[in-house]
């Protein structure tokens, strides 16, 4: 099957034999598919368990969030399916377009976005009346675009002007636009970008230099946080006027909370993380069992940012370890795709998107066990719905698209090989 027919078959789908076709046409790495199914099933269980308190507060039935999540999963699976049916080379162009769209979108969000938890990170889509976090789109666009740039510039990658700048400038733009409203996401994106640049053979010299520059504001922030912390009262001293604007005080106080808090401190800043720790502590090795969490009643955002704590509480350290292994397995499978993929763009796409997801997952889990300061990233595919869930599905769909093409190529090669063997055998027979 050529690429042409592939695209055509996507745009003019054959609905006549949908059921059988759907399964037949589902291609790509079976293990990744299995992981997706496994994680979404886990999310159903966890979301149902952890939204009880939210449902009560919103005066909704307990099942309403379960159905909502179920709808999200169906939608997500459809996205994966369609995304993986598209030939990934198309994404090279899509990457450029998405990247160009995301810049004005981020700007718009920053200026007019909906305020949720004090940072304006969201915009409301006019027709379907759903808020979505523009940084999710920008993140996906950036990594797709980076894959494109990295693959294209491989031959001149060590060159500052021709290789480095085309890669680093998009990263800089996106991070600067996201940072004011959502610093932790910006930091996470920057970190992932550095990792990708390292993988993409960008000169280590250049990476370190950029890292150095990028760290300046971070170090500055930490210094300010440490210097304005009043150890007697445990509160932030009065900040100078230029620091007291926007979300800067929030960042400072979060860093202070992470650096200075002790476990017996009892203050509101620590409430969330203490509740998460209580959940972890209550889990034991095997957990309390599905639906038996108590922390869900106290832990704000237990269905999104703090779902890993609930996983450990209900399924124990064993469940928590299993969850980690699943993400690592996912990463490993994506590396396999990379190894098999003959084209640089596809290979980078698989790497970039899988590393992002896994880094996000580990960041979420790290926050849950208080390894990192509180950021507010979700656990991919597991946390309750929303735009980030759908973007995650899109990423996976793209990875599977690469995988599908790799399989196809392998199939064609194998076909060629058997044909050749058959030919040779035939020749041999003829020779005999």
């Amino acid at each position, binding site marked *: 099957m050529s690429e042409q027919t592939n695209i055509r078959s996507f745009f003019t789908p054959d609905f006549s034999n949908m059921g059988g076709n759907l399964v037949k046409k589902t291609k790509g790495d079976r293990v990744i598919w299995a992981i997706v199914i496994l994680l979404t099933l886990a999310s159903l269980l966890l979301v149902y368990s952890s939204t*009880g*308190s939210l*449902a*009560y*507060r*919103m*005066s909704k039935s307990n099942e309403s969030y379960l159905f909502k999540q179920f709808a999200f999963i169906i939608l997500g699976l459809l996205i994966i399916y369609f995304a993986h049916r598209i030939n990934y080379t198309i994404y090279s162009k899509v990457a450029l377009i998405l990247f160009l769209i995301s810049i004005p979108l981020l700007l718009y969000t920053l200026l007019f976005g909906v305020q949720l938890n004090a940072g304006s990170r969201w915009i409301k889509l006019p027709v379907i009346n759903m808020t979505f976090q523009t940084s999710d789109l920008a993140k996906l666009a950036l990594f797709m675009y980076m894959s494109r740039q990295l693959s294209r510039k*491989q031959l001149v990658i060590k060159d500052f002007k021709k290789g480095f700048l085309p890669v680093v400038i998009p990263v800089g733009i996106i991070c600067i636009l996201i940072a004011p409203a959502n610093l932790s996401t910006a930091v996470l994106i920057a970190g992932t970008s550095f*990792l990708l640049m*390292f*993988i*993409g*053979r960008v000169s280590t010299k250049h990476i370190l230099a950029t890292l150095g520059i990028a760290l300046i504001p971070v170090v500055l922030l930490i210094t300010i946080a440490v210097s304005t912390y009043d150890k007697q009262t445990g509160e932030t001293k009065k900040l100078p006027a230029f620091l007291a604007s926007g979300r800067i005080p929030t960042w400072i106080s979060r860093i202070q909370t992470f650096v200075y808090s002790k*476990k017996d401190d009892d203050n509101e800043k620590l409430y969330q993380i*203490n*509740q998460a*720790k*209580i959940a*972890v*502590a*209550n*889990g*034991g090795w095997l957990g309390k069992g599905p639906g038996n969490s*108590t*922390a869900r*009643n*106290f832990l704000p955002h237990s269905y999104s940012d703090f779902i890993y704590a609930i996983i*450990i509480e209900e399924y124990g*350290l064993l469940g*928590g*370890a299993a969850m*980690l292994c699943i*993400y*690592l397995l996912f*990463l*490993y499978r994506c*590396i396999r795709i*990379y*190894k098999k993929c003959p084209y640089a763009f596809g*290979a980078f796409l698989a*790497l970039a998107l899988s*590393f992002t997801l*896994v*880094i996000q997952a*580990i960041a979420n*889990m*790290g926050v849950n*066990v*208080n*390894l990192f300061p509180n950021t507010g990233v979700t656990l991919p595919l597991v946390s309750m719905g929303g735009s980030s869930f759908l973007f995650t599905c899109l990423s996976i769909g793209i990875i599977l698209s690469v995988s599908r093409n790799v399989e196809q190529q392998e199939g064609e090669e194998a076909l060629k090989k058997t044909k050749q063997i058959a030919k040779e055998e035939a020749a041999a027979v003829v020779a005999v």
Partner: protein
Amino acid sequence: MEIKKDILWRVYLCFIGMAVLSVFVLGRAIYIQQVQGSFWRGMGDSLHLKYLPIDAERGSIYSEDGNMLSTSVPIFDVYIDFGADGLREKQGKRFKDNVDSLSISLAALFEDKPAATYEKELKLAYKNKERYYPLKKKISFDQYKAMRDFPLVRQGRNKSGFIIDPRDKRINPYVLLANRTIGLSRLNPKQNVGLELTYDSLLRGTTGQRLMRYAAGTYMPVEGAELDPVNGKDIVTTLDTYIQDVAQNALMKMMVNNNSLHGTVIVMETATGKIKAIANLGKQPDGTYIEDLNYGIGKATEPGSIFKLATLLSLLEDKYVTIKSIVNTEGGVKSFSGLRIKDSHLGAYEMTVKEAFERSSNVAFAKLADQYYGSEPTKFTDHLAKFRLNQMTGVDIVASSAKPTIKTPKNRSWSKTTIPYMAHGYEEMVTPLHMLMLYNAVANNGKMMKPYLVSAIRDYGVDIKKIEPQVLVEKIASDETLAQARECLKAVVDSAHGTAHKVVFDSLYSISGKTGTAVTALDNKGYNKGNKIYQASFIGYFPSEAPKYSIAVVIQNSRESKLVYGADVSGRVFKEVSDHIYGHFINNTKYAYTAAADTSMHVSSGMRSDLGSIFSYLNIIYRDSAVSGAWRRMQLVNNSASMSTPADFQTSSAVTPNVIGMGLKDAVYLLENKGLKITVTGRGKVVNQSLLAGTNFTKGQKISLLLN
């Protein structure tokens, strides 16, 4: 392929990096769980479980005649949590949609602020996101019930943010009546006073407990882990609201007129020792009088001449004198070891002991006591001890009772003048209740009863404990002594020379008693002239022949008081109280109230059908002169009724109807049909209406009804 290999090791390195991070995450989880585990689990339990006390209902206090003197009613404090998710979701749509109608409803219910003010305040609080905005405190159950149906409020706590905090409030329906004795119930039970304190453990009940687990946004009770509260018991006092009312009023009247400092009236039932009334009033800096202290029970003072009864009883009992013995008052002045004792009326010499008592001669009693007990003072103090003047009265409200001081020869301050001074009521401190007990014992044939305030403990309307009268001393003196003493006490009122004759004597029934006018020091400044004030007392019983009630009246006058003497001040109060009691309980021919209306004719209004069914139920024949219309005014004379429709009952007429005597339902129906707007206060039947019956009104005009 070179490039790909170069990339591959980098990828593996990063993968290893991820794996290492994963191990850190897991390690951290293990550390939290296994190393710090117990700390966090403990913290979890303390946060997620709590014991919620379930308050027991505090018992009520009743008067003996069944009136509620003190009871608890639920009141509600209303707060709003403007941070409630339901209120703020969709940019506060729910709040904005409802704030207008809610304000109007609140303004209509509480009538304290216009709706616009409510709206402004609510919006401001919403803007400031107040989490515990106090909307209104101490609203009644009825108001709370009405408020529950208001816009927004009816959507429940999560959506409206309304927080209702129910509390119990102690109210005394009879306000001032004996409220120092009934007492005050405060948040901290240790600060209670009166019966509320003494019987606090009974009234309070036992607080229950419920183990609550936080789940699904609220605390839910844990099954099987609750301890039910035991509601407080009710207490039935010996107080009688009628007597109490009379005593209170009589005392108040005298004190206001005479500008007195403080005073008390105690009424005791002779045969039982029941305290039927106890009124206490003290003057406040602003000139008003309130029950600020339990003077009758809680304040021991030098009794003055009322104490001469004790001296007389001792002398008679020891047979040193009879009431006919002659005593020389030496012109009314005599010196004892250099200290002069004076009578208030000088110039008298030889008289009988009885005369000395009725004239209240200080010299006579000082002299007699000095003569007979001067050498053996313990004989005298032993009598006083027998009269239980040296110990606590034993009345229920222990904490507010005062301790008396009766000297004995062992006291360091005992001197040669102590006996003559004690004999006429000085150098000793007793409460009015102490003296009343003694007088009551004389009235009760020598049987001294324990004064008491609580006659029964009641639980759900059933008496679980009855408190019977208790005898303290079977016989304080011989019958002979008692007869003579009673004769003397009667002479104080009956004899023309008696100190109380002018004020207390009544031709209809006979009163016995004794006056007392004690000089007391103002604010412990000593007895110097300028600081001298008088304590006026009268203690007695009636009817003299078969005493039913004993009454003590003790009033502390001020320097501005016009009346000073015991008879003039306290005697008058005594007489007013005894008159009422006599008329009401003993012989109600003379003092029956004329206020009761002639009951032979009844006028009432109501629906024709209602009246009709009442009459047929009561088998009363009635005539209906009206042809149409639903409303009738009926007259019932001598068991035959007639009904008519007055013009003012017709819906079309713009004349205010007379709704007095109607139930609220009828009145509202009638008035609203005529187009009037109604406000109502009180409950029961209409007793007053703001628009006079028969006057014209305009549609939409307001009329307020007073129910009772």
